[in-house]
């Protein structure tokens, strides 16, 4: 038997953690625990990103998603988790219905995921046979953040369009999307601050 | 201002309310009727010549001798005294105001004697009156927050009363 493939090992570790904690989020009734499980799940997803070679996105997931968004969410949970709202029971009928719908959705998705032949073929395996290098070295072939950054402002280093040299710069990137997201973010932050500002509703009686 | 002048000024305005006074003793005092305390106090505080802006202290004194042998010798009837120590920072004079109350209201033991509060005039009185209520058992009518001050909320009795008996137990804690 050949050596353990560490990529697979860590994939299994993070994948199980991500899936398991995601399931725990669904099954748990306590909102605070749900928040905790969600953090663990998203952390594991960040690990999967690292495994898939997306180091920058993985770090971003940790920093913005887990470190920022989730803090906000946990904050919200803490502000509202009082008495009856900590654990809210869902009626059994909804559970059954949701399980049926969710289960069928899962079956469908899994079927798609494993039935496309191209997706099942493992490039790493073939390459590993060809080269002497162990497969994990492949991980260093990751995307440099500077390429990502260039792509964001419109310079694609990976896919220059050979047919239209004039459009090589500025046309194939994500500048517009970047701008939209930025403005969106700004609007959202102002809006959130406006919505969540202190309001005194009614008198004290 | 001399104490005599202060008392003269008081007499001018509240002739009926002044029960007695003593200017020869260590701290010259004036005794007034319980009902007139807020009016007299207001006058003392607001009159530009008097300007008693500082209330030092409110004290409750219980005059009662539980020992019958000794009680025969004392020269006073059992009563409770509430003493206000006032002074004026602006005019640099001082005065002691006294009020005599019965030990129990309507002579029914357990009914605390009552005197109007002065806590709306001097905030010092707020806590001091609570303390006097707590320890000496005088009810200050109109007090905004008439709770016990030093003893626990559910304490029974007023420790500085001369006939006070220390309870033997408090919430399972042996007290004697």
């Amino acid at each position, binding site marked *: *038997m*050949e*050596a*353990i493939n*560490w*990529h697979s*090992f*860590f994939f299994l570790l993070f994948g199980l953690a991500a899936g398991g904690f995601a399931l725990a989020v669904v099954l748990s009734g*306590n909102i*605070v*625990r749900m928040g*905790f499980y969600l*953090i663990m799940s998203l*952390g594991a997803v960040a690990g999967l990103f690292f*495994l898939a070679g997306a*180091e*920058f996105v993985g*770090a*971003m997931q*940790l*920093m913005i998603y*887990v*470190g*920022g968004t*989730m*803090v*906000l969410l*946990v*904050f919200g949970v*803490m502000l509202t988790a009082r008495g009856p709202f900590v654990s809210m029971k869902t009626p059994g009928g909804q559970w059954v219905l949701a399980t049926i719908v969710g289960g069928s959705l899962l079956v469908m998705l899994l079927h798609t995921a494993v039935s496309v032949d191209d997706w099942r073929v493992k490039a790493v395996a073939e390459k590993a046979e060809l080269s002497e290098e*162990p497969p*994990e070295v492949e991980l*260093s072939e*990751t995307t*440099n*953040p*500077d390429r990502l950054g260039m792509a964001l402002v419109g310079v694609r280093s990976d896919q220059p369009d050979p047919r239209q040299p004039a459009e090589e710069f500025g046309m194939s990137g994500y500048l517009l999307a970047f701008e939209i997201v930025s403005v969106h973010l700004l609007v959202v932050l102002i809006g959130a601050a406006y919505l969540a500002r202190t309001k005194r509703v009614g008198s004290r009686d | 201002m001399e104490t005599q002048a202060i008392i003269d000024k008081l007499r001018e305005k509240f002739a009926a309310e002044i029960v007695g006074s003593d200017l020869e003793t260590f701290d010259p005092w004036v005794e007034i009727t319980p009902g007139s305390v807020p009016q007299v106090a207001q006058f003392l505080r607001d009159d530009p010549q008097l300007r008693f802006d500082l209330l030092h202290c409110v004290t409750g004194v219980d005059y009662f001798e539980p020992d019958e042998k000794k009680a025969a010798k004392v020269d006073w009837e059992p009563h409770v005294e509430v003493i206000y120590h006032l002074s004026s920072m602006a005019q640099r004079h001082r005065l002691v105001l006294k009020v005599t109350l019965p030990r129990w209201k309507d002579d029914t033991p357990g009914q605390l004697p009552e005197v109007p509060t002065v806590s709306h005039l001097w905030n010092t009185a707020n806590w001091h009156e609570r303390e006097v209520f707590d320890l000496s058992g005088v009810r200050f009518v109109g007090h905004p927050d008439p709770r016990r001050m030093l003893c626990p909320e559910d304490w029974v009795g007023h420790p500085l009363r001369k006939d006070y008996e220390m309870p033997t137990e408090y919430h399972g804690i042996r007290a004697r």
Partner: protein
Amino acid sequence: MAKFFIEYLDSLSIPILPEWIVHALVYLIVGLVQCGVLLAIVMVSVAVFTWMERKIAGRIQDRLGPTRTGGRFGWLQPLADGIKLWTKEDLVPKNADGLLFRVAPYIAFCASFTVFLALPFSDGWVAQNLNVAAFFVLAVAGLEIFGTILGGYGSGSKWSLFGAMREAAQVVSYEVPLGLCVLIPVMIAGSMNLVTIGNIQAGLFTNWLIFHDPCTFITFFVYGTCAVASVNRAPFDLAEAESELVAGFMTEYSGFRWSIFFMAEYGSMLAVSALATTLFLGGWNGPVPVTELLGWTEAAGAHPVLVQLGNLLGAANFLCKTYIGVTVMIWARWSLPRLRIDQVMTTCLKYCLPIAAAMLVGATLWLYAFPGGMILKQRLPDVSSQVPSDSCGTKTGDG
């Protein structure tokens, strides 16, 4: 390293166990040993810091500090503390959320110590040579607050909740200027790889990025402020402000779990200090390039042992600078009063953030005007050639 052992074992070919189990075991053991070495450095540092804290506090306050345990200077005081803490009764309050209360210290601990996975101690001496190491360090260090928040909430005490709330607000805010401050050296180096950033500062101390231009010089101090705030040290220790919140999020903790939080705090102190060293203070490069003068570099064709010896010198250099950083933090703690929460937020949003942003612009302009920095670099960095080198000695955790 694991590969070497596996090849060695394969060459022996003793059929005791199935081959894959042997391989797995070897990988596991080698990995654990390497992790252990890394962890040991950090843990020993933490122990030294607790001792340092007591000694420095003692000296500042005209006392002696520990003098009994382990000789004249109380060297073994951390050990005695540890034994005391670890044998203490482990209390979980009745109102606490048991799971969160128990798990929280470990989250903080893991986050605080995972940072060292990507921190280079010397040229190539890094557990995981990450492409985005600077970003990774920031991201993981930011996760420590989950330990605090969950612990604070899980304690079921209002003081703890207050501590957790403060910590959340504070750390999330300070991550923004902190990120901006880290961005400036990253931009100058043109890489997020900490090994690269360290290497471009080789040579005389004038090559250190703090002396790159006036902007980086100011940035260093902004970074210092934000770093102290983000690891919750005085004067920004609001989450555990003992005169206001009893002990903040740690109010209900005792014994072992408390000591885990404690180690996490010192671990993060070490981490931010190490990051500052790498980003601004030349990392493992001493003020004078001794190894280069001696010719103990790979480029000079020295023997690998000498190269590693040079690296060891670099690591000593690095730890020295890091310790100085921690000492400054300890010093500040014992001489400054604590800020109020609104003042902490004001410091962040009104001072640190605009200054950091201005410095980012300033550094960009400076880089455009004087590409070589304030003093002309002896050797300009070639960013494109900086691929993660595999020549490192302690490349652990191969996954």
